[in-house]
């Protein structure tokens, strides 16, 4: 039995494990991937100051630091069930049973599937899959690809593929359906892209960003957006083209696209085939939170956070005794925020476990640190993240009021 089991060896989980182990807790980290790092592994981008953020290196550093702090890390082990009884957690995996007093869920995020005709053909993959294949595994996902979906995540990954010498023929919007307005409507997409204008050297995007604040101008700029697309980095981005279908006999051969009007509706007679041997679907991320549901933890549905999120305080505690959360399971944000949240969770767990006065102070300071890092983040997956965090805090307060149980960290 260990003091703490952490599910997820990403930035939040590893950071928390290091702090807890260094302060005397016995810590076991479980992750089903064969390498530690989680989604951090594939991240590679240049920051505002010109420095490169190398997720592979950061992951290795965290992993080594955790090992040298005495953390036990079990990779290639999948958690399939969780039970809470008699002041102990029992974590069922595909190979063994693990037990602990405290449980930290740092399971991260998964990519939201965006179905489109032909998407089961071999050669179609999520952008995250192509990112891992390229940057972590160093095998080309294909020679020439099309990315369906224009988003912050998709653009960052497209740039990674481009860097590795993989030809991105174009980025297009998905065909509009009843369910994907936010991904298929050129105006919505342009608004979300305006938040990464500083990352896009494209003059056009930079020029248009200040104008996007007014809906009228936004309409205008989309209407005048060149049909041939514009270039972000080295590949054309088409806000006026949508993928209707992925075509191929037994594997991807191309994507059928059509020009679209300002509302995202395809214009008849404009269909064409873009040849490609792979296709990436960029649908955005959602918190991977099933394990929290197994514990009976209540959830809040908040679009700003990426979907259903386990109820938690800013100290990363949940309504379930001895259950804590950190990282993208609490809302989709950058790896740096996840690292900072891992710190909060660690100090909260330490305070709960030891009742030491000095951890209280560290909890408060690390909570402030999360907000500072959030404010400095080079890109945010959702521009309304602060509203999402506020909603969560309100729900937490409501829950506290309804239940006589006072916050064990208060």
């Amino acid at each position, binding site marked *: 039995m260990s003091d703490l089991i952490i599910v997820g060896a990403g930035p939040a989980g590893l950071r928390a494990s290091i702090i807890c182990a260094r302060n005397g807790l016995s810590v076991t980290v479980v992750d*089903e*991937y*064969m390498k530690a790092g989680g989604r951090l592994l594939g991240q*590679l981008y240049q920051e505002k100051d010109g420095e*490169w953020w*190398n997720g*592979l290196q950061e992951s290795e550093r965290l992993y080594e630091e955790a090992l040298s702090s005495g953390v036990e890390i079990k990779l*290639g082990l*999948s958690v399939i069930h969780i039970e809470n009884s008699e002041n102990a957690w029992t974590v069922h995996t595909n190979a063994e049973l693990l037990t602990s007093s405290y449980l930290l869920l740092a399971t991260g995020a*998964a*990519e939201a*599937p965006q179905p489109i005709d032909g998407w*089961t*053909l*071999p*050669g*179609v*993959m*999520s952008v*995250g*899959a*192509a990112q*891992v*294949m*390229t*940057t972590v*595994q*160093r*095998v*080309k*996902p*294909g*020679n020439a690809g099309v990315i369906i979906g224009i988003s912050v995540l998709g653009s960052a990954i497209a740039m990674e593929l481009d*860097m*590795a*010498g993989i030809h991105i023929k174009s980025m297009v919007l998905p065909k509009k359906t009843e369910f994907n307005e936010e991904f298929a409507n050129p105006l919505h997409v342009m608004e979300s892209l305006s938040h990464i204008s500083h990352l896009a050297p494209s003059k056009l995007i930079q020029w248009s960003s200040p104008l996007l604040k007014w809906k009228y101008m936004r309409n205008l700029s989309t209407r005048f957006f060149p049909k041939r697309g514009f270039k972000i980095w080295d590949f054309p981005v088409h806000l006026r083209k949508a993928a209707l279908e992925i075509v191929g006999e*037994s*594997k991807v051969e191309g994507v059928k696209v059509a020009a679209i009007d300002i509302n995202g509706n395809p214009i008849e007679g404009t269909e064409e085939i873009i040849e490609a041997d792979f296709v990436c679907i960029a649908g955005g991320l959602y918190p*991977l939170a099933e394990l929290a549901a197994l514990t009976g933890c209540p959830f809040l549905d908040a679009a700003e956070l990426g979907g259903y999120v386990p109820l938690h305080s800013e100290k990363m505690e949940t309504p379930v005794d001895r259950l804590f959360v950190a990282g993208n399971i609490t809302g989709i944000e950058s790896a740096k925020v996840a690292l900072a949240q891992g710190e909060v969770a660690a100090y909260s767990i330490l305070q709960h476990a030891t009742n030491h006065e000095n951890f209280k102070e560290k909890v408060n300071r690390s909570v402030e640190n999360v907000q500072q890092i959030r404010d400095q983040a080079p890109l945010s997956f959702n521009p309304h993240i602060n509203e999402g965090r506020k909603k969560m805090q309100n729900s937490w307060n409501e829950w506290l009021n309804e239940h006589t149980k006072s916050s064990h960290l208060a």
Partner: protein
Amino acid sequence: MDRINHHPILGERPKKEAVTFTFDNTTYVGEEGDTVAVALLSNDIRTLRHHEESGSARGIYCNIGHCFECRVTVNDIEGCRACLTVIEDNMKVESGKRLPNPLKQGGSFDE
């Protein structure tokens, strides 16, 4: 597909030992640390199975264990995720095949 040996930021790809395994009784060579999905893609194989009912070809989708599209049989254990299984020497990998569905042949129930 080619391996990415040179990378402007990550540098040269480190050399790794060869690992020999079979996929549907054909022998392939991958590298130490490769997953089944990576080793097969580097041998230009994208189709990992055929759908149980429709027989349509399937490959990786998420590449990190979430979607279960890449399930294969590894050393006689069914339902292993090709994207999470690291290859070993003499590993036997088999693709999923279309299963018989004799009751469907006559058409749908509403006819």
